Protein backbone atom coordinates (compact mmCIF):
# COMPACT_ATOMS: atom_id res chain seq x y z
CA UNK A 1 0.00 0.00 0.00
CA UNK A 2 0.85 3.67 -0.30
CA UNK A 3 3.40 3.24 -3.04
CA UNK A 4 3.97 6.65 -4.47
CA UNK A 5 0.85 8.33 -3.13
CA UNK A 6 0.91 12.09 -3.42
CA UNK A 7 -0.86 14.66 -1.30
CA UNK A 8 -4.36 15.57 -2.42
CA UNK A 9 -4.55 18.68 -4.60
CA UNK A 10 -7.32 21.19 -5.03
CA UNK A 11 -9.38 20.57 -8.18
CA UNK A 12 -7.88 23.64 -9.89
CA UNK A 13 -4.33 22.56 -9.07
CA UNK A 14 -5.18 19.04 -10.21
CA UNK A 15 -6.42 20.30 -13.57
CA UNK A 16 -3.34 22.47 -14.07
CA UNK A 17 -1.07 19.57 -13.16
CA UNK A 18 -3.03 17.23 -15.43
CA UNK A 19 -2.72 19.74 -18.27
CA UNK A 20 1.03 19.87 -17.89
CA UNK A 21 1.34 16.08 -17.68
CA UNK A 22 -1.31 14.78 -20.04
CA UNK A 23 -2.20 17.35 -22.67
CA UNK A 24 1.14 17.86 -24.33
CA UNK A 25 2.38 15.45 -26.98
CA UNK A 26 5.13 13.01 -26.15
CA UNK A 27 7.49 14.73 -28.60
CA UNK A 28 8.01 17.78 -26.40
CA UNK A 29 11.21 18.72 -28.20
CA UNK A 30 8.90 20.09 -30.91
CA UNK A 31 8.29 23.01 -28.57
CA UNK A 32 11.87 24.10 -29.29
CA UNK A 33 10.89 24.93 -32.85
CA UNK A 34 9.29 28.27 -31.89
CA UNK A 35 12.48 29.20 -30.06
CA UNK A 36 14.54 28.41 -33.13
CA UNK A 37 12.13 30.34 -35.35
CA UNK A 38 12.20 33.38 -33.08
CA UNK A 39 15.99 33.39 -33.01
CA UNK A 40 16.16 33.19 -36.81
CA UNK A 41 13.85 36.19 -37.14
CA UNK A 42 15.85 37.98 -34.45
CA UNK A 43 18.96 37.51 -36.57
CA UNK A 44 17.12 38.74 -39.65
CA UNK A 45 16.37 41.96 -37.77
CA UNK A 46 20.08 42.75 -37.98
CA UNK A 47 19.77 43.16 -41.73
CA UNK A 48 17.70 46.32 -41.26
CA UNK A 49 19.36 49.71 -41.29
CA UNK A 50 17.02 51.06 -38.62
CA UNK A 51 17.87 51.44 -34.95
CA UNK A 52 18.12 47.99 -33.38
CA UNK A 53 15.05 48.42 -31.15
CA UNK A 54 12.91 49.54 -34.06
CA UNK A 55 14.38 46.92 -36.38
CA UNK A 56 13.67 44.16 -33.87
CA UNK A 57 10.11 45.38 -33.32
CA UNK A 58 9.52 45.58 -37.07
CA UNK A 59 11.08 42.25 -38.15
CA UNK A 60 11.47 39.99 -35.11
CA UNK A 61 8.39 41.30 -33.33
CA UNK A 62 6.18 41.10 -36.37
CA UNK A 63 7.29 37.54 -37.13
CA UNK A 64 6.80 36.61 -33.52
CA UNK A 65 3.28 38.01 -33.28
CA UNK A 66 1.97 37.09 -36.71
CA UNK A 67 3.48 33.64 -37.06
CA UNK A 68 5.27 32.05 -34.13
CA UNK A 69 2.91 33.17 -31.36
CA UNK A 70 -0.41 32.19 -33.01
CA UNK A 71 0.84 28.89 -34.44
CA UNK A 72 2.44 27.80 -31.17
CA UNK A 73 -0.67 28.79 -29.25
CA UNK A 74 -2.88 27.03 -31.78
CA UNK A 75 -1.02 23.77 -31.26
CA UNK A 76 -1.00 24.10 -27.48
CA UNK A 77 -4.58 25.43 -27.37
CA UNK A 78 -5.99 22.51 -29.35
CA UNK A 79 -4.22 20.06 -27.05
CA UNK A 80 -5.74 21.76 -24.00
CA UNK A 81 -9.33 20.92 -24.85
CA UNK A 82 -10.28 20.29 -28.47
CA UNK A 83 -8.09 17.22 -28.91
CA UNK A 84 -9.32 15.73 -25.64
CA UNK A 85 -12.94 16.29 -26.55
CA UNK A 86 -12.41 14.63 -29.91
CA UNK A 87 -10.69 11.59 -28.42
CA UNK A 88 -13.19 11.08 -25.61
CA UNK A 89 -10.60 11.58 -22.87
CA UNK A 90 -12.24 14.79 -21.69
CA UNK A 91 -15.00 12.72 -20.06
CA UNK A 92 -12.65 12.02 -17.15
CA UNK A 93 -12.64 15.73 -16.36
CA UNK A 94 -16.21 16.54 -17.33
CA UNK A 95 -17.63 13.76 -15.15
CA UNK A 96 -16.71 15.51 -11.93
CA UNK A 97 -18.44 18.01 -9.69
CA UNK A 98 -15.86 20.68 -10.58
CA UNK A 99 -17.42 23.87 -11.94
CA UNK A 100 -17.01 24.52 -15.63
CA UNK A 101 -15.31 27.86 -14.95
CA UNK A 102 -12.66 26.07 -12.94
CA UNK A 103 -12.13 23.47 -15.65
CA UNK A 104 -11.67 26.15 -18.31
CA UNK A 105 -9.40 28.22 -16.07
CA UNK A 106 -7.31 25.19 -15.09
CA UNK A 107 -6.76 24.14 -18.67
CA UNK A 108 -5.95 27.72 -19.68
CA UNK A 109 -3.51 28.20 -16.80
CA UNK A 110 -1.73 24.97 -17.69
CA UNK A 111 -1.52 26.12 -21.29
CA UNK A 112 -0.18 29.52 -20.24
CA UNK A 113 2.57 27.87 -18.21
CA UNK A 114 3.62 25.77 -21.20
CA UNK A 115 3.33 28.65 -23.68
CA UNK A 116 5.11 31.03 -21.30
CA UNK A 117 7.95 28.57 -20.80
CA UNK A 118 8.39 28.31 -24.55
CA UNK A 119 7.57 31.75 -25.89
CA UNK A 120 9.01 34.08 -23.26
CA UNK A 121 12.57 32.72 -23.64
CA UNK A 122 12.08 32.59 -27.40
CA UNK A 123 11.06 36.24 -27.59
CA UNK A 124 13.81 37.35 -25.22
CA UNK A 125 16.42 35.35 -27.10
CA UNK A 126 15.25 36.87 -30.37
CA UNK A 127 15.71 40.37 -28.94
CA UNK A 128 19.19 39.56 -27.69
CA UNK A 129 20.40 38.09 -30.98
CA UNK A 130 18.84 41.06 -32.78
CA UNK A 131 21.18 43.29 -30.82
CA UNK A 132 18.36 44.86 -28.82
CA UNK A 133 18.74 43.32 -25.35
CA UNK A 134 16.70 46.15 -23.84
CA UNK A 135 13.72 44.76 -25.79
CA UNK A 136 14.06 41.29 -24.24
CA UNK A 137 11.77 42.05 -21.29
CA UNK A 138 9.06 43.80 -23.32
CA UNK A 139 9.22 41.04 -25.95
CA UNK A 140 8.74 38.36 -23.29
CA UNK A 141 5.83 40.29 -21.73
CA UNK A 142 4.19 40.74 -25.12
CA UNK A 143 4.60 37.06 -25.93
CA UNK A 144 3.16 35.86 -22.63
CA UNK A 145 0.26 38.32 -22.67
CA UNK A 146 -0.53 37.48 -26.29
CA UNK A 147 -0.33 33.76 -25.54
CA UNK A 148 -2.78 34.15 -22.67
CA UNK A 149 -5.34 35.77 -24.94
CA UNK A 150 -4.79 33.35 -27.80
CA UNK A 151 -5.04 30.30 -25.56
CA UNK A 152 -8.30 31.50 -24.00
CA UNK A 153 -9.78 31.97 -27.47
CA UNK A 154 -8.52 28.60 -28.66
CA UNK A 155 -9.89 26.87 -25.56
CA UNK A 156 -13.25 28.52 -26.30
CA UNK A 157 -13.06 27.41 -29.94
CA UNK A 158 -12.19 23.89 -28.76
CA UNK A 159 -15.36 23.83 -26.70
CA UNK A 160 -17.48 25.26 -29.51
CA UNK A 161 -16.52 23.48 -32.71
CA UNK A 162 -15.89 19.94 -33.85
CA UNK A 163 -12.95 21.08 -35.97
CA UNK A 164 -11.31 23.63 -33.72
CA UNK A 165 -8.03 23.76 -35.62
CA UNK A 166 -9.82 24.88 -38.77
CA UNK A 167 -11.76 27.55 -36.91
CA UNK A 168 -8.65 28.68 -35.08
CA UNK A 169 -6.89 29.13 -38.41
CA UNK A 170 -9.89 31.08 -39.68
CA UNK A 171 -9.59 33.34 -36.65
CA UNK A 172 -5.86 33.93 -37.11
CA UNK A 173 -5.58 34.15 -40.87
CA UNK A 174 -8.89 35.52 -42.02
CA UNK A 175 -10.08 37.58 -39.10
CA UNK A 176 -6.85 38.84 -37.57
CA UNK A 177 -4.46 39.04 -40.48
CA UNK A 178 -6.71 39.92 -43.40
CA UNK A 179 -9.56 41.81 -41.80
CA UNK A 180 -7.53 43.05 -38.82
CA UNK A 181 -4.99 44.64 -41.17
CA UNK A 182 -7.73 46.73 -42.73
CA UNK A 183 -10.13 47.28 -39.82
CA UNK A 184 -8.81 48.85 -36.64
CA UNK A 185 -11.88 47.64 -34.75
CA UNK A 186 -10.74 44.04 -35.23
CA UNK A 187 -7.10 44.84 -34.47
CA UNK A 188 -8.24 46.35 -31.18
CA UNK A 189 -9.41 42.90 -30.10
CA UNK A 190 -6.81 40.80 -31.89
CA UNK A 191 -4.22 39.04 -29.70
CA UNK A 192 -1.64 39.25 -32.47
CA UNK A 193 -2.04 42.97 -33.09
CA UNK A 194 -2.30 43.71 -29.37
CA UNK A 195 0.83 41.70 -28.60
CA UNK A 196 2.70 43.67 -31.25
CA UNK A 197 1.31 46.90 -29.78
CA UNK A 198 2.53 45.78 -26.36
CA UNK A 199 6.06 45.34 -27.67
CA UNK A 200 5.97 48.61 -29.58
CA UNK A 201 4.66 50.52 -26.59
CA UNK A 202 7.04 49.03 -24.05
CA UNK A 203 10.16 49.44 -26.21
CA UNK A 204 9.51 53.01 -27.26
CA UNK A 205 9.34 52.19 -30.93
CA UNK A 206 5.94 53.85 -31.05
CA UNK A 207 6.90 56.72 -33.31
CA UNK A 208 7.64 54.43 -36.23
CA UNK A 209 5.42 51.43 -35.66
CA UNK A 210 2.40 52.46 -33.63
CA UNK A 211 -0.97 51.73 -35.16
CA UNK A 212 -3.69 54.33 -34.69
CA UNK A 213 -6.59 53.28 -32.51
CA UNK A 214 -4.86 50.25 -30.99
CA UNK A 215 -3.79 50.58 -27.34
CA UNK A 216 -0.06 50.26 -26.69
CA UNK A 217 2.24 49.07 -23.96
CA UNK A 218 0.52 48.18 -20.69
CA UNK A 219 -2.82 49.34 -22.05
CA UNK A 220 -2.51 46.62 -24.68
CA UNK A 221 -1.66 44.10 -21.96
CA UNK A 222 -4.87 45.14 -20.20
CA UNK A 223 -6.83 44.66 -23.40
CA UNK A 224 -5.26 41.22 -23.88
CA UNK A 225 -6.34 40.28 -20.36
CA UNK A 226 -9.85 41.37 -21.22
CA UNK A 227 -9.84 39.24 -24.39
CA UNK A 228 -8.61 36.28 -22.31
CA UNK A 229 -11.41 36.76 -19.79
CA UNK A 230 -14.03 36.88 -22.53
CA UNK A 231 -12.55 33.75 -24.11
CA UNK A 232 -12.66 31.89 -20.81
CA UNK A 233 -16.23 33.01 -20.15
CA UNK A 234 -17.29 31.68 -23.55
CA UNK A 235 -15.42 28.42 -22.94
CA UNK A 236 -17.09 27.95 -19.54
CA UNK A 237 -20.49 28.57 -21.02
CA UNK A 238 -19.91 26.14 -23.86
CA UNK A 239 -18.69 23.41 -21.50
CA UNK A 240 -22.10 23.54 -19.88
CA UNK A 241 -23.79 22.31 -23.05
CA UNK A 242 -20.93 20.15 -24.26
CA UNK A 243 -21.60 16.51 -25.14
CA UNK A 244 -18.20 14.93 -24.61
CA UNK A 245 -17.65 12.44 -27.41
CA UNK A 246 -16.76 8.83 -26.97
CA UNK A 247 -13.97 7.52 -29.14
CA UNK A 248 -16.62 5.54 -31.04
CA UNK A 249 -18.45 8.70 -32.09
Amino acid at each position, binding site marked *: *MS*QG*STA*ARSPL*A*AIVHYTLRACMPAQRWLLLLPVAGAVVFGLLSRLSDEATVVAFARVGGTAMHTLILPITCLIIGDALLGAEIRSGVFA*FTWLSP*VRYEKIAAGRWLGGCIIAGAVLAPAAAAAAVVAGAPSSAGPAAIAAVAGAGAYLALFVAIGAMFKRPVVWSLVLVILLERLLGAALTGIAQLSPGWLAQATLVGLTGAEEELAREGVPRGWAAVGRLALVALVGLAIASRRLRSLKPASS*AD
Partner: protein
Amino acid sequence: MPPDTDPAFVDGATVEVADASVWFGQKVALSELSCSFGPGVTGLLGPNGAGKSTLMRAMTGLIGVNAGRVRVDGRDPRTDRAVQGRIALVPEDEAVPAQLTARELVRYVADLHGVRDPDAVDRALDLVDMQAAADRRLKGFSKGMRQRSKVAAALVTDPPVLVLDEPLNGADPIQRANLTGLFRRLGAEGRTVIVSSHVLSEVERLADRVLVLIHGRLAAAGNHRAIRDAMDDRPRHVLIRADDPRRLAAALLGLDTVAGASLTDAGLVVTTDRARDLAVAVAPVARDLGVRLREVRPLDDSLESLFRELTR
Protein backbone atom coordinates in the same frame (compact mmCIF):
# COMPACT_ATOMS: atom_id res chain seq x y z
CA MET B 1 -45.62 5.69 -11.77
CA PRO B 2 -45.60 2.17 -13.20
CA PRO B 3 -47.12 -0.68 -11.23
CA ASP B 4 -45.03 -2.36 -8.56
CA THR B 5 -45.12 -5.63 -10.46
CA ASP B 6 -43.44 -4.27 -13.58
CA PRO B 7 -39.95 -5.81 -13.59
CA ALA B 8 -38.56 -2.76 -15.40
CA PHE B 9 -38.92 -0.79 -12.18
CA VAL B 10 -37.63 -1.16 -8.65
CA ASP B 11 -38.66 0.25 -5.31
CA GLY B 12 -36.32 2.84 -3.82
CA ALA B 13 -34.83 3.66 -7.20
CA THR B 14 -31.68 5.79 -7.33
CA VAL B 15 -31.74 6.14 -11.12
CA GLU B 16 -35.03 6.76 -12.89
CA VAL B 17 -35.57 6.88 -16.62
CA ALA B 18 -38.97 8.08 -17.76
CA ASP B 19 -40.07 8.04 -21.42
CA ALA B 20 -36.52 8.92 -22.41
CA SER B 21 -35.78 9.34 -26.09
CA VAL B 22 -32.43 10.20 -27.64
CA TRP B 23 -31.78 10.63 -31.31
CA PHE B 24 -28.75 11.61 -33.34
CA GLY B 25 -30.00 13.12 -36.58
CA GLN B 26 -32.18 10.47 -38.18
CA LYS B 27 -30.95 7.69 -35.91
CA VAL B 28 -33.05 6.92 -32.85
CA ALA B 29 -30.79 5.63 -30.10
CA LEU B 30 -33.36 5.46 -27.29
CA SER B 31 -37.08 5.42 -27.83
CA GLU B 32 -39.48 6.27 -25.01
CA LEU B 33 -37.54 4.13 -22.58
CA SER B 34 -38.82 3.84 -19.04
CA CYS B 35 -37.10 1.88 -16.29
CA SER B 36 -35.41 2.37 -12.97
CA PHE B 37 -32.36 1.11 -11.11
CA GLY B 38 -31.80 0.59 -7.42
CA PRO B 39 -29.25 -0.91 -5.05
CA GLY B 40 -27.71 -4.14 -6.30
CA VAL B 41 -26.33 -5.13 -9.68
CA THR B 42 -28.50 -4.64 -12.74
CA GLY B 43 -27.38 -5.93 -16.10
CA LEU B 44 -28.09 -4.04 -19.28
CA LEU B 45 -28.12 -6.57 -22.05
CA GLY B 46 -28.41 -5.93 -25.74
CA PRO B 47 -26.65 -6.32 -29.04
CA ASN B 48 -24.28 -3.67 -30.36
CA GLY B 49 -26.20 -0.54 -31.25
CA ALA B 50 -29.09 -1.36 -28.92
CA GLY B 51 -28.70 1.88 -27.00
CA LYS B 52 -26.94 0.62 -23.88
CA SER B 53 -24.08 3.10 -24.06
CA THR B 54 -26.45 5.93 -24.95
CA LEU B 55 -28.57 5.15 -21.90
CA MET B 56 -25.46 5.07 -19.71
CA ARG B 57 -24.22 8.35 -21.12
CA ALA B 58 -27.61 9.90 -20.47
CA MET B 59 -27.61 8.59 -16.89
CA THR B 60 -24.26 10.21 -16.22
CA GLY B 61 -25.17 13.48 -17.94
CA LEU B 62 -22.65 13.15 -20.78
CA ILE B 63 -25.59 13.64 -23.13
CA GLY B 64 -29.04 15.01 -22.55
CA VAL B 65 -32.24 13.27 -23.56
CA ASN B 66 -34.27 14.81 -26.39
CA ALA B 67 -37.54 13.86 -24.69
CA GLY B 68 -38.51 12.40 -21.34
CA ARG B 69 -36.25 12.62 -18.34
CA VAL B 70 -33.44 10.93 -16.46
CA ARG B 71 -32.94 11.47 -12.76
CA VAL B 72 -30.22 10.37 -10.36
CA ASP B 73 -31.28 10.74 -6.75
CA GLY B 74 -34.06 12.96 -8.07
CA ARG B 75 -31.63 15.30 -9.85
CA ASP B 76 -30.96 15.93 -13.49
CA PRO B 77 -27.45 14.62 -14.23
CA ARG B 78 -27.14 16.87 -17.27
CA THR B 79 -27.60 20.14 -15.43
CA ASP B 80 -26.84 19.44 -11.78
CA ARG B 81 -23.08 19.12 -11.23
CA ALA B 82 -23.68 17.74 -7.73
CA VAL B 83 -24.87 14.51 -9.36
CA GLN B 84 -21.31 13.94 -10.58
CA GLY B 85 -20.25 13.50 -7.00
CA ARG B 86 -22.68 10.59 -6.62
CA ILE B 87 -22.20 8.69 -9.86
CA ALA B 88 -19.21 7.26 -11.70
CA LEU B 89 -18.94 5.94 -15.23
CA VAL B 90 -16.53 3.45 -16.67
CA PRO B 91 -16.88 4.17 -20.39
CA GLU B 92 -16.53 1.41 -22.92
CA ASP B 93 -14.19 3.24 -25.25
CA GLU B 94 -10.48 2.85 -24.83
CA ALA B 95 -9.65 6.54 -24.74
CA VAL B 96 -7.42 7.30 -21.78
CA PRO B 97 -4.89 10.06 -21.12
CA ALA B 98 -2.05 8.03 -22.53
CA GLN B 99 0.76 10.09 -20.97
CA LEU B 100 -0.44 9.43 -17.43
CA THR B 101 0.30 6.42 -15.30
CA ALA B 102 -2.62 4.47 -13.87
CA ARG B 103 -1.88 5.96 -10.45
CA GLU B 104 -1.87 9.51 -11.87
CA LEU B 105 -5.23 8.94 -13.53
CA VAL B 106 -6.79 7.65 -10.33
CA ARG B 107 -5.17 10.49 -8.35
CA TYR B 108 -6.51 13.03 -10.85
CA VAL B 109 -10.07 11.76 -10.58
CA ALA B 110 -9.75 11.65 -6.78
CA ASP B 111 -8.55 15.26 -6.71
CA LEU B 112 -11.39 16.41 -8.95
CA HIS B 113 -13.86 14.85 -6.54
CA GLY B 114 -12.16 16.30 -3.50
CA VAL B 115 -11.13 12.92 -2.09
CA ARG B 116 -8.86 13.72 0.85
CA ASP B 117 -8.15 10.19 2.11
CA PRO B 118 -4.44 9.66 1.29
CA ASP B 119 -4.95 5.89 0.99
CA ALA B 120 -7.94 6.09 -1.35
CA VAL B 121 -5.85 5.86 -4.51
CA ASP B 122 -3.94 2.80 -3.39
CA ARG B 123 -7.12 1.18 -2.17
CA ALA B 124 -8.82 1.66 -5.52
CA LEU B 125 -5.79 0.27 -7.37
CA ASP B 126 -5.69 -2.72 -5.02
CA LEU B 127 -9.35 -3.46 -5.67
CA VAL B 128 -8.67 -4.02 -9.36
CA ASP B 129 -5.30 -5.66 -8.81
CA MET B 130 -3.41 -2.87 -10.57
CA GLN B 131 -0.92 -1.95 -7.88
CA ALA B 132 1.98 -3.67 -9.63
CA ALA B 133 1.44 -1.77 -12.87
CA ALA B 134 0.21 1.47 -11.30
CA ASP B 135 3.30 3.48 -12.17
CA ARG B 136 3.38 2.52 -15.82
CA ARG B 137 1.96 4.79 -18.48
CA LEU B 138 -1.50 3.97 -19.74
CA LYS B 139 -0.38 4.07 -23.35
CA GLY B 140 1.48 0.81 -22.87
CA PHE B 141 -1.49 -0.97 -21.32
CA SER B 142 -3.61 -3.71 -22.85
CA LYS B 143 -7.32 -3.10 -23.23
CA GLY B 144 -8.04 -5.09 -20.10
CA MET B 145 -5.54 -3.11 -18.04
CA ARG B 146 -6.98 0.15 -19.31
CA GLN B 147 -10.43 -1.02 -18.30
CA ARG B 148 -9.21 -1.91 -14.84
CA SER B 149 -7.50 1.47 -14.51
CA LYS B 150 -10.78 3.16 -15.41
CA VAL B 151 -12.62 1.01 -12.89
CA ALA B 152 -10.10 2.09 -10.24
CA ALA B 153 -10.62 5.73 -11.22
CA ALA B 154 -14.36 5.25 -10.84
CA LEU B 155 -14.08 3.49 -7.49
CA VAL B 156 -11.72 6.01 -5.90
CA THR B 157 -14.63 8.42 -5.46
CA ASP B 158 -16.62 5.78 -3.55
CA PRO B 159 -19.73 6.44 -5.66
CA PRO B 160 -23.20 5.25 -4.58
CA VAL B 161 -24.06 4.77 -8.25
CA LEU B 162 -21.61 2.99 -10.54
CA VAL B 163 -22.24 2.73 -14.27
CA LEU B 164 -20.02 0.25 -16.09
CA ASP B 165 -20.13 0.05 -19.86
CA GLU B 166 -18.82 -3.36 -20.97
CA PRO B 167 -16.28 -3.38 -18.13
CA LEU B 168 -15.05 -6.92 -18.78
CA ASN B 169 -13.98 -6.24 -22.35
CA GLY B 170 -10.41 -7.32 -22.86
CA ALA B 171 -10.02 -8.80 -19.39
CA ASP B 172 -8.43 -12.22 -19.08
CA PRO B 173 -10.44 -15.02 -17.40
CA ILE B 174 -8.88 -14.49 -13.98
CA GLN B 175 -9.47 -10.74 -14.09
CA ARG B 176 -13.01 -11.35 -15.33
CA ALA B 177 -13.68 -13.49 -12.29
CA ASN B 178 -12.07 -10.92 -9.99
CA LEU B 179 -14.00 -8.00 -11.47
CA THR B 180 -17.25 -9.96 -11.45
CA GLY B 181 -16.76 -10.69 -7.77
CA LEU B 182 -15.89 -7.05 -7.11
CA PHE B 183 -19.01 -5.73 -8.85
CA ARG B 184 -21.20 -8.20 -7.00
CA ARG B 185 -19.66 -7.12 -3.70
CA LEU B 186 -20.26 -3.47 -4.53
CA GLY B 187 -23.87 -4.28 -5.30
CA ALA B 188 -24.23 -6.24 -2.09
CA GLU B 189 -22.91 -3.21 -0.18
CA GLY B 190 -26.00 -1.33 -1.31
CA ARG B 191 -24.58 0.57 -4.27
CA THR B 192 -26.48 0.86 -7.50
CA VAL B 193 -24.29 -0.97 -9.99
CA ILE B 194 -25.38 -0.92 -13.62
CA VAL B 195 -23.37 -3.13 -15.96
CA SER B 196 -23.81 -3.41 -19.69
CA SER B 197 -22.83 -6.33 -21.85
CA HIS B 198 -23.80 -8.05 -25.05
CA VAL B 199 -22.95 -11.44 -23.60
CA LEU B 200 -25.81 -13.08 -21.72
CA SER B 201 -23.65 -15.50 -19.77
CA GLU B 202 -21.54 -12.57 -18.55
CA VAL B 203 -24.61 -10.72 -17.34
CA GLU B 204 -25.90 -13.89 -15.70
CA ARG B 205 -22.79 -14.08 -13.57
CA LEU B 206 -22.89 -10.40 -12.71
CA ALA B 207 -26.47 -9.42 -12.17
CA ASP B 208 -29.60 -10.79 -10.64
CA ARG B 209 -31.78 -8.35 -12.51
CA VAL B 210 -31.49 -7.85 -16.25
CA LEU B 211 -32.93 -5.31 -18.64
CA VAL B 212 -32.77 -6.19 -22.32
CA LEU B 213 -32.51 -3.32 -24.78
CA ILE B 214 -33.09 -3.64 -28.49
CA HIS B 215 -33.23 -0.77 -30.95
CA GLY B 216 -33.41 1.68 -28.07
CA ARG B 217 -36.45 0.04 -26.53
CA LEU B 218 -36.89 -2.16 -23.50
CA ALA B 219 -37.47 -5.67 -24.84
CA ALA B 220 -37.52 -7.63 -21.61
CA ALA B 221 -36.85 -7.20 -17.92
CA GLY B 222 -36.58 -9.54 -14.99
CA ASN B 223 -34.14 -11.95 -13.43
CA HIS B 224 -31.68 -13.66 -15.73
CA ARG B 225 -33.54 -16.97 -15.50
CA ALA B 226 -36.63 -15.40 -17.03
CA ILE B 227 -34.55 -13.83 -19.78
CA ARG B 228 -32.72 -17.09 -20.46
CA ASP B 229 -35.99 -19.05 -20.59
CA ALA B 230 -37.47 -16.54 -23.00
CA MET B 231 -34.47 -17.03 -25.23
CA ASP B 232 -34.35 -20.81 -24.95
CA ASP B 233 -38.03 -21.41 -25.67
CA ARG B 234 -37.94 -20.28 -29.25
CA PRO B 235 -37.23 -22.30 -32.36
CA ARG B 236 -33.60 -22.44 -33.34
CA HIS B 237 -31.67 -24.00 -36.16
CA VAL B 238 -28.68 -26.16 -35.50
CA LEU B 239 -26.27 -27.30 -38.18
CA ILE B 240 -24.94 -30.82 -37.70
CA ARG B 241 -22.17 -32.15 -39.90
CA ALA B 242 -21.73 -35.90 -39.67
CA ASP B 243 -20.44 -38.71 -41.86
CA ASP B 244 -23.97 -40.12 -42.29
CA PRO B 245 -26.40 -37.24 -41.89
CA ARG B 246 -29.37 -39.11 -43.37
CA ARG B 247 -29.34 -41.81 -40.67
CA LEU B 248 -28.74 -39.28 -38.00
CA ALA B 249 -31.66 -37.15 -39.22
CA ALA B 250 -34.00 -40.12 -39.06
CA ALA B 251 -32.97 -40.87 -35.53
CA LEU B 252 -33.13 -37.27 -34.38
CA LEU B 253 -36.64 -36.86 -35.76
CA GLY B 254 -37.72 -39.41 -33.18
CA LEU B 255 -36.72 -37.06 -30.37
CA ASP B 256 -39.41 -34.79 -28.99
CA THR B 257 -36.92 -31.92 -28.85
CA VAL B 258 -36.62 -31.91 -32.65
CA ALA B 259 -39.31 -30.12 -34.59
CA GLY B 260 -37.86 -30.75 -38.04
CA ALA B 261 -34.76 -31.62 -40.00
CA SER B 262 -33.54 -30.97 -43.50
CA LEU B 263 -30.49 -32.00 -45.45
CA THR B 264 -28.59 -29.15 -47.04
CA ASP B 265 -25.27 -28.79 -48.82
CA ALA B 266 -23.74 -27.57 -45.58
CA GLY B 267 -25.06 -30.52 -43.59
CA LEU B 268 -28.07 -31.51 -41.55
CA VAL B 269 -30.11 -28.55 -40.29
CA VAL B 270 -32.26 -29.41 -37.28
CA THR B 271 -35.04 -27.18 -35.99
CA THR B 272 -35.61 -27.28 -32.26
CA ASP B 273 -37.36 -25.22 -29.65
CA ARG B 274 -35.23 -26.71 -26.87
CA ALA B 275 -31.69 -26.11 -27.96
CA ARG B 276 -30.16 -27.16 -24.67
CA ASP B 277 -31.91 -30.52 -24.63
CA LEU B 278 -30.90 -31.15 -28.21
CA ALA B 279 -27.29 -30.34 -27.41
CA VAL B 280 -27.36 -32.95 -24.68
CA ALA B 281 -29.12 -35.57 -26.82
CA VAL B 282 -27.34 -35.40 -30.14
CA ALA B 283 -24.03 -36.93 -29.09
CA PRO B 284 -25.50 -40.12 -27.52
CA VAL B 285 -27.79 -40.63 -30.54
CA ALA B 286 -24.84 -40.35 -32.90
CA ARG B 287 -22.76 -42.70 -30.76
CA ASP B 288 -25.53 -45.31 -30.67
CA LEU B 289 -25.80 -45.14 -34.47
CA GLY B 290 -22.06 -45.28 -34.93
CA VAL B 291 -22.22 -41.97 -36.78
CA ARG B 292 -19.24 -39.68 -36.40
CA LEU B 293 -20.05 -36.07 -35.59
CA ARG B 294 -17.86 -33.45 -37.23
CA GLU B 295 -19.55 -30.26 -36.18
CA VAL B 296 -22.59 -29.13 -34.18
CA ARG B 297 -23.17 -25.43 -34.52
CA PRO B 298 -26.20 -23.22 -33.87
CA LEU B 299 -26.97 -21.28 -37.03
CA ASP B 300 -28.85 -18.42 -35.44
CA ASP B 301 -27.45 -18.35 -31.97
CA SER B 302 -25.97 -14.92 -32.20
CA LEU B 303 -27.31 -12.65 -29.53
CA GLU B 304 -28.74 -10.43 -32.23
CA SER B 305 -30.95 -13.22 -33.54
CA LEU B 306 -32.02 -14.14 -30.03
CA PHE B 307 -32.91 -10.55 -29.34
CA ARG B 308 -34.80 -10.28 -32.60
CA GLU B 309 -36.84 -13.26 -31.52
CA LEU B 310 -37.62 -11.63 -28.22
CA THR B 311 -39.07 -8.59 -29.89
CA ARG B 312 -41.40 -10.47 -32.22
